[in-house]
Structure formats: C-alpha cells, structure tokens
C-alpha cells in the first residue's frame, strides 16, 4: 500500500521523533511510506478558533497534497478528526481521501488488522485516551491493544482516564486558568499510577501533559505512542 504520511504541524515541529517512528512502523509492515514535502497543517486551530475562512486554503492544500494516496496516516487523532469530520462542512463537499485518513493506531488495528508490531519497551506505562480519539475519530481501544502486545511493557490503568487533559488548542491560552485546573487533576491521576511514562496518540495533548508534569518537577515522561511502538 502506498501510504502518505501526514506528520501534522505539531509533530513536525515539536515531536519529529513521533513522525519518524510512524514511518518506521509502517515500513516494517512492508508498506511504501511517502512523506510529501509540500505538507503543512490541517487548519484545525483556525477552524476551532472561529477562523473558518483562514482554514479553507489549508484544507485545500491538504487535499492537493494527499488526495492521491491509498491511505493517509498521521500521528494525531485530533488532526485526523478535523480532516474527517470538519472538512466536509468547511469545503461543503466530500473527498474520498477523507475517509482514508487515519490516526496511526487506528490504521494499524482497524485498517490493517495488526495488533502486534513486534515492539519492545521495558517500562511502566499509563495510557491517556485523548478526547478526539475517543469521541471524534472513535478509535476505541486500538492503542491499548497495541500497547498490550509490546514486550516488557507494564501497562497501568489511569484513573478517570477518559477525562480531558485541558489542552483544547487555543483554549489552553484563552482560558489558561481553567485549562490548568483540568491539567492539575490529570497530572495527579498520572502520578498516582506510579508509571514512568504517560503515552497518548496526540502530540498536542502530550504538549499539555508533558508541560504540566515537567513544571511539577515530575519524573514521568510524556511520550507519543508511535515512539513506543517503534522501539525494539
């Protein structure tokens, strides 16, 4: 399968290792992974902040860049959610590639039927299911299935896991106090697990969680799931 890798602006800029790991995992499974040089940003921030008109060229740019692939995979469920759920409203027209755009773990489990990627990661890990993976792209327990098959990984349950981390894009700045109050509870829940690593499918949420844990002087690392699944 010829897969277009959409790194997303957040991963491209701040979590390049997660994007690289995504390519590694897919290539190991025997797929051709193409990284289009012209790719940029899906425009989710603009759409979510009320700047619909400014998002339109970005959506068109995405389609022009990725329209021809058999599948598009991204290390982010919120960007994928924006593409699948918001583009049809924004563009007022569908496109076959929208349905073929998936977040990594969703693509592996639901698209390819793969639950064991042969990874090894000897750490105590807790998993935060991000809101958009649960309630927009609805990937269910796909990431957990993958994590359960990682050699040496001890998976510990996160209390109140399905609660938001408080990121919410520009919400984290516009409503910083509320965002921080939500984050404080998430960080406490993570600490209570005694995990070494908190993982998730979205870089943006990991930015928030990692930023909170770091400020609290915590030893828990926020690491993207792709990096765990690519570890050997």
């Amino acid at each position, binding site marked *: 399968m010829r897969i277009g890798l959409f790194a997303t602006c957040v991963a*491209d800029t701040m979590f390049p290792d997660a994007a690289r790991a995504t390519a590694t995992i897919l290539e190991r499974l025997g797929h051709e992974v193409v990284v289009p040089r012209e790719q940029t940003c899906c425009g989710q921030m603009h759409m979510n902040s009320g*700047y*619909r008109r400014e998002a339109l060229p970005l959506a068109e740019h995405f389609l022009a860049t990725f329209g021809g692939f058999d599948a598009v995979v991204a290390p982010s469920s919120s960007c994928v959610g924006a593409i699948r759920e918001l583009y049809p409203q924004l563009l007022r027209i569908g496109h076959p590639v929208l349905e073929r755009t998936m977040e990594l773990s969703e693509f592996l489990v639901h698209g390819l039927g793969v639950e064991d990627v042969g990874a090894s990661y000897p750490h105590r890990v807790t998993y935060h299911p991000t809101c958009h993976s649960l*309630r927009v792209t609805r990937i269910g327990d796909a990431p957990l299935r993958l994590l359960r098959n990682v050699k040496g990984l001890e998976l510990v349950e996160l209390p109140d896991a399905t609660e938001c981390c408080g990121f919410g894009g520009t*919400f984290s700045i516009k409503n910083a*106090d509320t965002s921080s*109050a939500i984050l404080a509870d998430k960080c406490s829940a993570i600490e209570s697990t005694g995990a070494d690593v908190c993982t998730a499918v979205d870089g943006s949420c990991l930015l928030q969680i990692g930023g909170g844990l770091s400020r609290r002087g915590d030893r828990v690392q926020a690491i993207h799931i792709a990096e765990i699944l690519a570890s050997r």
Partner: protein
Amino acid sequence: MRTPSETFPQAAARELGNPQLRTNLGNATGTIRDKRARVVAELPDWQALRDAGSAIKADVMAGLDSYLLQFEEALQAAGATVHWARDGAEACQIVADVARRHDAKEVVKVKSLTTDEIELNAMLAQHGIHALETDFAELILQLDGDWSSHILVPAIHRNRTEIRDLFKNTIAPDIESDDPAVLAEAARLYLRERFLDAKVGVSGANFGVAETGTLCVVESEGNGRMCTTLPPVLVSIVGIEKLVPTFADLEVFLQLLPRSSTGERMNPYTSLWTGVTDGDGPQELHVVLLDNGRTRVLKDEIGRQALHCIRCSACLNVCPVYSRTGGHAYGSVYPGPIGAILTPQLIGIENAPTLPFASSLCGACYDACPVKIDIPRVLLHLREQAVQATSKPGERLAMRAMGWAFARASRMRVAQRVARQLQRPLIKSGMIRRLPPPFSAWTRTRDLRPVAKIGFVEQATAEDERPT
C-alpha cells in the same frame, strides 16, 4: 435575561480560586455522572431512544408554527387561557396582572429555569408580590440572595453545613444538626403553611403536548405538585420550544430525562394536567407561551438544535470545564456546555462573546446529550460569529499570518527556523519555562516543549531539496 457582566476567563479565574467550591463541585458532579452512566448502560436501546428524542425535537422545530397553534387550541378547549409573550417583560407582566387580579401578595413557585431566565421574581417584587421558591435548593438560594449554579441542582456549590447555618439565621432559628433529613424537615415545616395559604401558583413546564394541551412538570420533591394543585389559580410559563407533538412522544422523553439528569430509572413526581377540571386542582389556568429570543435561534440552521434541550444537565456533569469552574462563571441561568451555546444565541453573541470559547471541545457533552445536540459543532459555529462580532485585531493578525505561513511548506519552514532562533535564550534544561504575553498564559503553569532542532518533513525530504 441575565447578561454576563464579565468575560468567562475572568469569572472562571475567580470561581477557580474557591477551594470549597472546587471540592463540592468535584464530589457532586462525580456522583451524578457515575449514577447516570450506570442507569444509561442498563438500557439496550439507549442510542435508539436518543435518536428518537432528537428526531421528535427536530420535527417540532420544523413545524413549530402549526404545533403552537394546535397547542393553543387544545388548551383553550380544555378551559385554559393562553397568553403569548414576545419577551420576558411581557411574560412577567402577565403573571403580575393575574396575581393582582386575585389580590395575591405571594405566589408559590415550582422550580423553573424559564422563570429564572425572565427574572420573574425580581419583576414581581417591583409589583409588591413575593415569589416564594419551593424547590429545596431554590429556597436555599432565595434565602441567601444567591443564584443557581446548576440547572438541576441549583445549590450544588453549597454543602450541608453552610445550609444549616443559613437556615439557623432565617427559617429555623433552633436548628442544630446538619443532617440532610433535619434540613429537609425544616424546609418542609416552613413551606407547608405557605402552600395552603397561596392563591396563585407559578410553574414552568418540561413538556407541552400539542395534540392535547397537556402540560408536564418533572420534579423530585413533590413541592412542585403542591404548587400546581393547591392554589386555586395556576400560571404556567412555557418556552415555545418545549412542545412535543403527541402524548405518546412523552414516552421517549420520560425515559431519557430522569436517567440523564438525576440518574434515576423513573422520575419521582411527574405531574400532568390538561386545562381545568371541576372541583379538582386549580380552577383557573393561564399558560404563557414565551419567545424571548427563541424564534431568532430557530432561524439559525446549525444553532437551532440548542432548542432541543430538555434541561437534563448531563452535559454539565460530564464537562471538564463546568466541573472545575461551576455555573456562576457562565454568568447566565443556563450554565455549562448547553449554556455556552444557548445563552449567546438567546441574548445575542455580542453580549456573551467569550462563552462559546469556554470549552476544550472534548466532546463529552455531545455523547451525554439525550437528544444528541452536537454541542461542539454549535460551539465552532458560534465562535465564528463571535470572531466576526468582536474586534481583536492582534488575534486576527496572528491567525491570518499563521494561515499564510501554513499555506506553503517553504513558509512553514521559515517560521520554524525563526521560532528556533527566538526560543534559544528561553530554553532551560530542555524546556521553555517562561514566555512573553500572550504565551505567558501557558508558561504560568506549564513548561513548553521547544521547537525541535530540525523538523521531521525537512529532514525526511532533505535529499529531495533543491536550491530554488
């Protein structure tokens, strides 16, 4: 209708600073949330019920003009007097006129958000008429001059010790215990005599059946039923969106509502009445059909689904924002996610432009909503309107600049390079600890992961790069 007097971020910051409120809210919303999840999971056809509720409400909105006339006709045939009120002032005037005609110095009230919306109590007070709240929680707030912070449990921000102290200073000077049963008994003794003396009762309605003219009030205490049955005169104020087409449609909503709101399988006190009946209950029934901005909401194709709301408050209890800030931060009688989409539409986006942004877009409200209101979608729709209605030149410029930069990969790479240069003096042991405004809002409580030394796409496609 109450208009927020400050922005959501300002109000939220104040409310978040109250640790007692945070604890009370966390406990209360957590308890109701768990109860709701349990009883919803019991029903194998819950999703089908939600679909039915959503479809019935969509049908009502599409045919509201004829349903309202049908409702009016049925009410009149059953002996009720129907009044139409364009806004809150007109509705309040109608209630005041009825009370004055019957020489009532006090009216007893069923808990009703619609009467809160039109600020009925304050308006009646201007006419020298006292409106007595008879719902336990509403009574607490009234005695304390406070206002509701939750649709269903208005005094959710109060705990029982605070309530005992309040009662001691007001209706029950001898009270010592803060045991819930003792508190309830004190309120009961106080209210009973007032029910018997009242000449006029005032209610809202959860549902109005267009086919039969039946009104329905759903409550837990029985005090509402006292108000709708004991006084000889009853005035019911009904938002025009509260209709259902037929009596049989109640079957859907009377399953959806209690499970979503209190987490009960069946509602304790469900009162239904149709017009007046000789020798039984009130002998004079006035029904006030209230618009107060609703037809304007109806005009908006995306926003109108906010009118489907049956006021269960499930979206409040699951909301990460509401469960931290509480209802007062929303500055409206309609707090939480539903308030964030309903209030700006009812009073105009320019009067509440920060409310649609009071959400992390986590989507929990949409999943919990018994009539499937797509709250995140309406929030985005209203954010767009808010951006157009308010002037934020700095933000607009930044958004445009980022849109321009992200439209081409080459520009995005330049932006990344610039960020890399700018962040250099700010990085301390691998993280950015402090940023200038507006990004200081982030670094006040969080560190920031810096921009990587080289972007993934730039590195992955390095061999393709050609000098331009």
